[in-house]
Every structure is written in structure tokens, then in C-alpha cells.
């Protein structure tokens, strides 16, 4: 066992600096026999939660900290002794990142003083002010620069000694030791680890060169290859002060009390008092139920009573009311929205948020919440993507202290790894284009070097001969390289979000945390997914166009049995239709020939990687089309599987089979389903089978029958799709298809103006519109707008479809026309709108001035590239 542990370690989460993941770090530490290791990424805690989990699993003590820069440019490392200390570190990082006065992230003295509780400070390493004094032989200065920290941290301050083989290192360390002795501060040895082995120094240099050449940052890398994860023995030879090495374990010991509160839920404290929330939820749901149906069926009353009981028991009433507030806000602003995921299986959700009726569609509340689930339930809502930020903004305004967006850490994919490594190595851009011409963005698990030799399109690729580039790219593939904001995840913390994560501001002025969705789950925090769906934007825009034409359509109240819509589905002409426009879905439409709404639900559920892999599609279609007879193994299974001809398509069916046939309560049936969904070992599978068999035989079923039912459940359980999610999506699918069938022009206009609403580019949508007899008018300065518009019963393309005419230029042309009237001639146009020469020639060539008198003789066609 090594008598030393590393306390300054910068992983790949110190973006484009460290060369390893926390997992690789823990693995290496375990091999070297060190009992603890710290992760102290630069200005961040992005990797902290996963590092903590990985280290705990490996039996290594995780120590969490961060390297931060102070107001005067000196770097220190702060380490959390407890979870409270971690919260303080989060606050220091948050304040430092938000520091606008200096123009770079910097922690101020008052920040450090205010939030120093339960933190350990390491100072004196590379990049610190005391080391600069010591290097210049100024022991007095070094000692004085320790004093402010001594006042703040007292016994939790350590003076860092480092030796990287530079000529001045030994002498500098001597002076630091003397200064530390004089002010009575203990010394400690660290190595500022940025790579796991000396050979990885090349990789570090590559990452630095990416920062320099791609991001144009002025940055210096580490001076040599000594900043690696050394052994205690190696450190002892570098730092000949035994106490400095021993103190690393002392610090680790001081941090033994640190732990993340994983394994339990941390619901947010919202405005509603618990009793009041339960009562308000029940009252609102009942009022909505009474309003929506008369008479109210007994099954609705029973279901509502059961759901309210579970929600109350799990203390989720205020959460449901919060979501209701969000939905009501969206409704008040006319923002289209819909629920997705298992939440759509809840009657309470149906009543509060107006999602599909779960009883009508045979959905199961227990798939969403049951007594057996320990995690926070997800209520994911899709909003019109152009207006989603309004919703997020309102939520953040309502809970400014408790909320932050979830972070997403982007990793190098194969193609970006090659391109950026090539940039780092100094390849010219045209050469990089040539090298990566056929290389896919992502390789789905095959290594880069293998892919280059195996993929047929790469057989003549010049990349095969670039061994150094390939080897570097293969090493950086998968490493994190920058953080960004999750599409719509908003964290709601119990009190202050900065107790859990540092927060910074996004370009949209939303606060963003440093934990990703997996970390949020792991910490038991509540995450609301406020997602943007471009199809909602497209449908809203189509509705607006119809309204302008005097046609009032409420897509949410369409009858679900429209013949024209089903004819459209059956024709496979589904380009632009939500969820059904991909080649595979079009193909399946032709084979399935939907005749009713539930067919659309099945279609959406079947065309997923799981069902395709499990060959459920073939089995379902054979039975549906009468090529195979549908047999039920037991009469109890008929009502559950009849709608899908005996094939288990939905997760809800798995739950029902396990519940009805084997007699598991729903909570256990859901746990059983989740256990089957995960990758299982043979032992786990045998355990599940024994459980199922035992329960089924106790219910009086024959052993052979129980075995066969288990076999079918086991085959399909991993592939089944959540029916509640499919039903919620199928409504949007139906709405888009209805629009296409009845009002194709408005449908195409909506799609074209919603940005990338589907898989196909605008030109394909326009081509289809033209094929369906809708005239498409080219852009013109006197009739085009910033979006696609109606013109003479057809579609008029906007000016931005002309290459070289961006939204800014187009806006200038349209504003001028709207302000001062139509353009009268070429000369009149060019006098009124000042444009770059290139844009002028593009406009002329594209015919955007066609029909205007050519009064500008000298300007003629200009050839373009």
C-alpha cells in the first residue's frame, strides 16, 4: 500500500487539459495501491459525482476539490472536507465564474473568506504567487503571501511542494519549506496530475494545441512529461520531506467525512404546504373530472382515488401542482404543449394537464408511479420550441435560488477527434477535409483505428496512412471537451441550487449547473424536462395561416376517425408527419396500413431499435395480416395482449402479464420489468425466473405453462415501448397527418417555417409541395418575406433561401419595402438598400429582381463560384 495519495489531479473535465476520465483515474490508482485520490478539476466540478461513485465502487476514497484562480492571478486548490464544504466550494466557483470586473473567472478574497467553512486550501504549487516569490529567492514575500490564507483557513492550510525536474525546483521548495516553518503551516507534496503516464504528455500537448489553433486561446501547456500519476516512491525521490508525503494521507483523512447524499430523494421545497397541496390537488382534479365528463364513470372515480392516494403517500402533490402551474402559464400564453413519457398514463395528469385519457387508451398509472419506485418520477413536457424559453424563464423567475439548467458534457466523437487532432498537428484545412471525407461522425463502439481499416468507404482513404494522427485521435475520442446546456432539463433543488452544483450564466441568461442528467438522478434531485418540439411550432404556424384564411381549426379537438387521414397513412405518403416520416416508418406504414388510432400507437411503438432487433415487427404483422394464427397461452392473457395480436409490444403489457398471471403486485411487477430491461447476468436471470415461476405456480399455473409465459415476457420485456408515451406522440402524429390530408399548403408552410421540424431538408418539402400541385414561387424582393408565405394559392420562398443572403440582409430588404413601398427598378432597389457587392450579384442572378426595370446598365451578371 502506497503511503501517498494525489491531491491535485486534473482530469478531462478540466476541458482540453487533462487526458483521462475519472474512471481511468480510479482504475490506475487502484493498480498503484493508493487508498485515496482527489479530483480537482480547473474551475469546475463536472466530473465530481461520477468520480465519487466510481471511486466508491472501487474501494478508493474520493476527495473532491477544484483548482481556482484568485483575483491577483494566483492559483490555489480547494478541497471539500464535508458536503457542506462542497457546497461552499460550489458557491466560490459560482461567484468566481460570475466575476465581470477582471474579465476572466476569479475568486475574490471576500468570497474565499465567506465560504471557507469545511474547505482545505493548498497553495504554493505551480502558478501560485508564493511560488513565484520563492523562485526569486524571496522567502519573506512567500511567507507574507501565505498570511491571508492562514487567517482564513488556519489549520486547514497546506503549503504545496512540487518538483517537476526544472532547475529551480529544489531551491524553490527549500524556501517554501522555510517560509512554511516560519508561519507554522504544514507542507504537502502534490504533482498537478494532468496525465496518467508520462507517454500521455503528447496527448496533453495535442489538447493544448486544439485550444490554441482551433479556439485561438493564448494558453501554455505543461513544460514536461513529469505531471503524471506517480507512485509514492517516485514522489519520495522528488520531494525529500517525508512529512510532506505523509500529509497527503492526513488531508485524505480530514476529508473522510465527505459524501454525496446519494441513494435518497431530495424533493424541492415548494410554496405549497403539504396538507394544502394534497387538498388543492384533489380538489382541482375532481373539479376537472366533473367538468370533463357527465356522468362520471365509476372507473374514473376509482382510478382517481387510487392515484391521489399514491401521490399523497409519496409527497408529490406539490410537484404535480407545480407542473400544473407551468402548463397553465403555457396555456395563458397560447403556447402549444403536450406531455410525453409514462406520465401520460396518469388520470391526474390527464385532468390537470389535458394529456390523453389513460382509461380510454388502456394506460397504466403504475408504469409512471408506484410504491416500489424510489426515484423521482419524470414529468416531461414538450412545448412549442420557439416559445419554450418563455416557459423556462417563468419557472426560473418563480424559483430563482433553487433552479438551474442541467449541464451536458460534450465528448469528442470519431470525426471531430480526427479533425481537431489534425488541427492540433498543423494540417491545413483542405487536407483535413480530404482526410475525413468519408469518416462517419460516430462509430457506434468500434474503435477509430479499427473503423478505418474495416469500413468499406474508408478503403482508399488517405487517413489510413496517418498513423500518428489516428493514434492521437483514437486516444481523445470519447474524452469530454466542453460543457453545454441540456436541451430542456431544469433542476429544482431543495433550497439553494449552489449547495449542489456551481452555477454560471448561459448565453440566454439562464443559470446552468455543472451536473448532467445522470448526476441529477444519482443525487436524487428533481429534474423537470421542459423540452422544445418543432412539430408544435409547425402546427401552431399552420393553424395561424389557416386562421388568416378564415379557417378556424382546433387541432386538439379533432375526431380520431377521419377517413382522409387514414388514407394518407395507408398511402405511405408521410413526409413531414410527426414520427412517421423516416424511410423505415414509411415502409412499416405500407405493411401495417393503419385503420384506427390504436394502429398509429402500435406503429410508433414498433419502429424502435428494440422491437426491430427483437423481430417483434414481423411477428406482429404476420398475426395481424392473418399469416399466423394468434394463440393465447392462457385465457388470462387474452384481454392484455388481444390489441397487439398476442405480441408484447408495450411495457404496460409486461406489467399486466406479470401482475395478472404471476400475481405480482404492480410495484413489484414494475421492478421486475425494470430488472429485465437492464443487461442481466445469467444468475440474475435465473433469480428472476425462479421468482416468477414460484409466484405463478402458487397461483395454480402448470410449470410448463409458467415457463413458456416467462420465456415470452423475457424475450419482449427488454424491447417493449411505453404505451403512454406512444399514445401522447400518436396524437401529434394524427394532428400533423390530418393537416397534411386536409390543408396541405398550410401544413407545408408550417413545416418550412418551423426550422428543422423533421428529418428532411426544406428543399425536399418544397419538392413534395410542388408535386402535390402547390405552386412554388421563387424569392423576389417585392413579394418575399423572412419566412415562407402564401402567394397566389402557392408558396412564396423567403429571401434567405438565396445563398449569401442571411436573415440580417433579408430583414433590411423587407423592412425597407414595408416602410417605403415596393421597389420600382434595379436602381431604386440598390439606392434604397445598401448591400455588399456579393449579395447584389446573388440577388440579381437568382432572379429576385425579375420584372423590375433594369435601369442600372453597368451592373450585369457577375459570375459566381
Amino acid at each position, binding site marked *: 500500500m502506497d503511503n501517498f495519495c494525489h491531491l491535485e489531479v486534473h482530469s478531462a473535465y478540466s476541458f482540453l487539459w487533462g487526458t483521462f476520465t475519472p474512471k481511468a483515474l480510479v482504475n490506475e490508482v487502484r493498480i498503484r495501491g493508493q487508498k485515496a485520490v482527489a479530483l480537482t478539476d480547473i474551475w469546475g466540478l463536472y466530473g465530481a459525482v461520477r468520480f465519487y461513485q466510481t471511486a466508491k465502487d472501487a474501494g478508493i476514497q474520493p476527495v473532491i476539490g477544484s483548482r481556482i484562480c484568485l483575483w491577483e492571478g494566483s492559483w490555489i486548490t480547494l478541497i471539500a472536507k464535508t458536503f457542506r464544504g462542497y457546497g461552499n466550494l460550489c458557491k466560490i466557483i459560482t461567484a468566481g465564474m460570475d466575476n465581470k470586473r477582471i474579465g476572466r473567472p476569479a475568486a475574490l478574497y471576500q468570497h474565499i473568506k465567506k465560504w471557507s467553512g469545511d474547505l482545505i486550501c493548498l497553495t504554493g504549487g505551480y502558478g501560485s504567487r508564493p511560488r513565484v516569490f520563492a523562485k526569486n529567492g524571496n522567502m519573506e514575500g512567500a511567507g507574507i503571501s501565505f498570511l491571508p490564507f492562514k487567517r482564513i483557513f488556519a489549520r486547514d492550510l497546506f503549503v504545496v511542494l512540487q518538483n517537476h525536474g526544472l532547475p529551480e525546483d529544489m531551491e524553490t521548495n527549500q524556501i517554501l519549506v522555510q517560509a512554511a516553518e516560519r508561519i507554522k503551516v504544514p507542507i504537502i507534496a502534490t504533482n498537478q496530475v494532468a496525465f496518467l503516464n508520462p507517454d500521455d504528455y503528447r496527448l496533453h500537448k495535442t489538447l493544448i494545441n486544439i485550444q490554441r489553433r482551433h479556439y485561438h486561446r493564448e494558453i501554455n501547456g505543461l513544460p514536461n512529461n513529469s505531471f503524471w500519476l506517480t507512485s509514492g516512491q517516485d514522489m519520495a525521490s522528488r520531494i525529500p520531506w517525508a512529512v510532506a508525503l505523509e500529509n497527503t494521507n492526513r488531508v485524505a483523512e480530514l476529508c473522510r467525512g465527505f459524501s454525496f447524499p446519494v441513494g435518497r430523494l431530495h424533493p424541492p421545497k415548494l410554496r405549497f404546504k403539504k396538507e394544502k397541496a394534497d387538498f388543492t390537488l384533489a380538489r382541482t382534479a375532481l373539479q376537472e373530472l366533473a367538468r370533463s365528463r357527465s356522468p362520471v364513470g365509476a372507473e374514473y372515480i376509482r382510478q382517481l382515488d387510487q392515484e391521489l392516494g399514491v401521490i399523497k403517500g409519496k409527497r408529490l402533490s406539490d410537484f404535480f401542482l407545480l407542473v400544473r402551474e407551468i402548463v397553465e402559464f403555457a396555456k395563458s400564453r397560447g403556447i402549444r404543449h403536450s406531455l410525453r413519457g409514462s406520465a401520460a398514463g396518469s388520470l391526474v395528469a390527464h385532468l390537470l394537464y389535458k394529456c390523453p385519457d389513460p382509461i380510454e387508451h388502456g394506460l397504466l398509472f403504475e408504469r409512471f408511479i408506484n410504491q416500489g419506485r424510489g426515484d423521482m418520477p419524470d414529468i416531461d413536457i414538450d412545448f412549442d420550441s420557439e416559445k419554450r424559453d418563455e416557459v423556462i424563464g417563468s419557472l426560473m423567475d418563480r424559483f430563482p435560488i433553487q433552479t438551474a439548467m442541467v449541464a451536458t458534457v460534450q465528448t469528442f466523437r470519431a470525426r471531430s477527434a480526427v479533425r481537431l487532432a489534425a488541427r492540433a498537428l498543423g494540417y491545413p484545412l483542405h487536407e483535413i477535409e480530404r482526410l475525413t471525407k468519408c469518416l462517419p461522425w460516430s462509430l457506434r463502439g468500434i474503435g477509430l483505428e479499427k473503423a478505418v481499416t474495416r469500413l468499406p468507404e474508408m478503403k482508399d482513404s488517405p487517413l489510413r496512412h496517418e498513423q500518428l494522427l489516428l493514434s492521437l485521435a483514437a486516444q481523445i475520442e470519447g474524452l469530454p471537451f466542453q460543457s453545454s446546456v441540456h436541451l430542456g432539463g431544469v433542476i429544482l433543488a431543495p433550497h439553494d441550487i449552489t449547495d449542489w452544483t456551481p452555477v454560471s450564466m448561459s448565453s440566454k441568461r439562464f443559470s446552468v449547473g455543472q451536473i448532467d442528467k445522470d448526476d441529477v438522478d444519482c443525487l436524487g434531485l428533481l429534474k423537470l424536462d421542459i423540452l422544445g418540439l418543432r412539430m408544435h411550432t409547425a402546427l401552431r404556424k399552420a393553424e395561424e395561416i389557416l386562421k388568416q384564411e378564415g379557417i378556424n381549426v382546433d387541432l386538439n379537438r379533432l375526431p380520431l376517425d377521419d377517413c382522409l387521414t387514414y388514407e394518407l397513412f395507408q398511402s405511405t405518403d408521410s413526409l413531414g408527419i410527426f414520427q412517421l416520416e423516416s424511410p423505415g416508418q414509411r*415502409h412499416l406504414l405500407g405493411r401495417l396500413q393503419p385503420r384506427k388510432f390504436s394502429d398509429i400507437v402500435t406503429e410508433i411503438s414498433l419502429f424502435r431499435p428494440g422491437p426491430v432487433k427483437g423481430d417483434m415487427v414481423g411477428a406482429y404483422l404476420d398475426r395481424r395480416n392473418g399469416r399466423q394464427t394468434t394463440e393465447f397461452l392462457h385465457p388470462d392473457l387474452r384481454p392484455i395482449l388481444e390489441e397487439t395480436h398476442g405480441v408484447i409490444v408495450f411495457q404496460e403489457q409486461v406489467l399486466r402479464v406479470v401482475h395478472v398471471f404471476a400475481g405480482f403486485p404492480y410495484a413489484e411487477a414494475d421492478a421486475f420489468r425494470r430488472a429485465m430491461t437492464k443487461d442481466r447476468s445469467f444468475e440474475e436471470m435465473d433469480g428472476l425466473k425462479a421468482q416468477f415461476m414460484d409466484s405463478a405456480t402458487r397461483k395454480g399455473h402448470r410449470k410448463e405453462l409458467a415457463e413458456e409465459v416467462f420465456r415470452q415476457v423475457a424475450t419482449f420485456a427488454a424491447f417493449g415501448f411505453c404505451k403512454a408515451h406512444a399514445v401522447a406522440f400518436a396524437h401529434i402524429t394524427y394532428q400533423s397527418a390530418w393537416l397534411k390530408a386536409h390543408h396541405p399548403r398550410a401544413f407545408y408552410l408550417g413545416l418550412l417555417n418551423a426550422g428543422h421540424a423533421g*428529418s428532411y431538408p426544406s*428543399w425536399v418539402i418544397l419538392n413534395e409541395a410542388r408535386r402535390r400541385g402547390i405552386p412554388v414561387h421563387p424569392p423576389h424582393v417585392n413579394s418575399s418575406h423572412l419566412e415562407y408565405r402564401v402567394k397566389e394559392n402557392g408558396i412564396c420562398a423567403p429571401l434567405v433561401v438565396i445563398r449569401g443572403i442571411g436573415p440580417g440582409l433579408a430583414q433590411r430588404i423587407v423592412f425597407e419595402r414595408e416602410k417605403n413601398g415596393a421597389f420600382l427598378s434595379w436602381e431604386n432597389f440598390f439606392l434604397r438598400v445598401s448591400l455588399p457587392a456579393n449579395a447584389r450579384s446573388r440577388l440579381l442572378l437568382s432572379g429576385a429582381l425579375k420584372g423590375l426595370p433594369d435601369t442600372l446598365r453597368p451592373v450585369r451578371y457577375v459570375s459566381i463560384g
Partner: protein
Amino acid sequence: MCPLVEQVWIEYRTMKVYCTEHPIFILRPWLRAAGIIRAGDLRSIPSGQRIKVAGLMIMVHTPPTRSGKRVMFVTLEDESGLMDLVMFPCAQKQWAKEILTNEVLTIEGRLKREGKRGLSISIVAERVLQCFTGSFPSLLRQIPSNISIF
């Protein structure tokens, strides 16, 4: 050049969309002469027949498959509609690069129709016809002088 061909050419060079006609429409007389059929004609051809089709490349998709082998799903478009092609690993060995790097593709393969009404149409791609494959301008230049394009 006739006005229609000129207009399509202008749109191809200057715009991100085609307002007047599909570029393949311009190449059609040449393609027809070579026995290359349109997407719109596929519904009248029996399953199993060998056919040649040409179109602008829209997308290539390589989803995970049951066997673990890579299957390329290619979507092309001509003036009459979309065409879905499937290319299996044996054909990919020779033609994957052509599929991934060309704007206009001409492919020979076998038609496959499924479903009760035979509306589920795909083409199992066997080979790429290189003389009709490339960028739109390069193909436009190759049209023999004896073929009139409008």
C-alpha cells in the same frame, strides 16, 4: 438552353431550394434513354424486377440491426418522389464510398414490394452506375449532344 433548364440551373447555383423544377427533371431525357425509371413508376412494377433509378441523395442511415451487420438505408429523390434503398454489406464493400460522397446517384437493384397493397416499396441496391453518378453540374455537362433537353 431553354428557359426552364436555365431557371433550374440558376436555382441550383444560387439557392438552397428548387422552386421551379427538380434538377433530376432536367436530366430525365438522358436518364430515360438509359432505361432509368422514375420513383413514381415504381408502384406499377412487380416485386423482384431489376430496375435502375436515379435521384438526389437525401440521407443515408445506418441503424443498429439484429444481426449486428451494417445495413445502409439510402433515400433518394427524383422529380416524381422519394425512393428508399437498402444496401447490404456485400454491395457496400464496393459502393459505400460512392453512396457517401455523391450528390446524384444512379443505382441498379431489385425492387421489393411488401404489404397487402404492395405499397411498401424498397430497392435492394446492388451496384452504383458510375456514369450517371456525380455532382449535378458534372452530369449536366456529360449529356450527349444528340439528346435534347427541352
